[in-house]
């Protein structure tokens, strides 16, 4: 299984990462991708100017790799890539990109969803929403925790 991860300190082009992923495939029948964008509003509807993702110099990349490898092994992927932003992310910019390739579509769909549910709770990041009214550090929501928990069954 080919596993690549990248912690991006600058804005990235998800389409370019998709092309780089696809170029290295060898006849898989399915590619599923997910791109997460920085939302322009909080859950309460307040406007967000930007997000700040604080990260650990070593543990963050290690967590991305562990999640990507687990996703690939669990669903028997042939390749997976995870790109995740750190630092200041402008509203509307991509924050995460996951691509999963497998022989058949089901594994690729499930692996992509599993990777995202893990990333939302287990990736080593501290996220702050910066708006005109101030800044707020956020933690996983109950929905995120429930999404993560359903894979432990």
């Amino acid at each position, binding site marked *: 299984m080919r596993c690549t991860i990248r912690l991006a300190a600058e804005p990235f082009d998800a389409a370019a990462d998709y092309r780089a992923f696809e170029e290295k495939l060898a006849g898989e029948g399915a590619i599923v991708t997910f791109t*997460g964008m920085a939302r322009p509003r909080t859950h309460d509807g307040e406007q967000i100017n930007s997000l700040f*993702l*604080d990260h*650990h110099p*070593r*543990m963050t990349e*290690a967590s991305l790799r562990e999640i990507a490898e687990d996703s690939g092994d669990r669903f028997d992927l042939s390749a997976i890539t995870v790109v*995740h932003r750190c630092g200041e992310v402008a509203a509307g910019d991509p*924050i*995460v990109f996951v691509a999963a390739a497998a022989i058949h579509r089901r594994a690729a769909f499930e692996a992509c969803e599993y990777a995202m549910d893990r*990333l*939302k*709770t*287990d*990736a*080593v*990041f*501290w*996220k*702050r929403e910066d708006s005109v009214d101030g*800044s707020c*550090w*956020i*933690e*996983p929501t109950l929905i*995120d925790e429930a999404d993560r928990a359903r894979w432990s069954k």
Partner: protein
Amino acid sequence: MKIRFYGRLGDRLGSEIEVAVPPGTDTVVELREVLAEMFPQASGELRQRSRACVADGFVADDYRLASVDSIEFLPPLSGG
């Protein structure tokens, strides 16, 4: 001792500080108490709502600091 903070702790206290640890501070829990008194604005996180980390591994509150010159405190993760 060099101490690194992340997330809201880093915002409040600085991402990296150097602290002269008083003699008799032998374990992580004792260091938490020293820091909580030094930084009352973050005492809750320093005493309880953070995980201590040495050489990229989490350590328990009874971990001994005898040979430790660098430690990190990680607040709850936000996830990606």
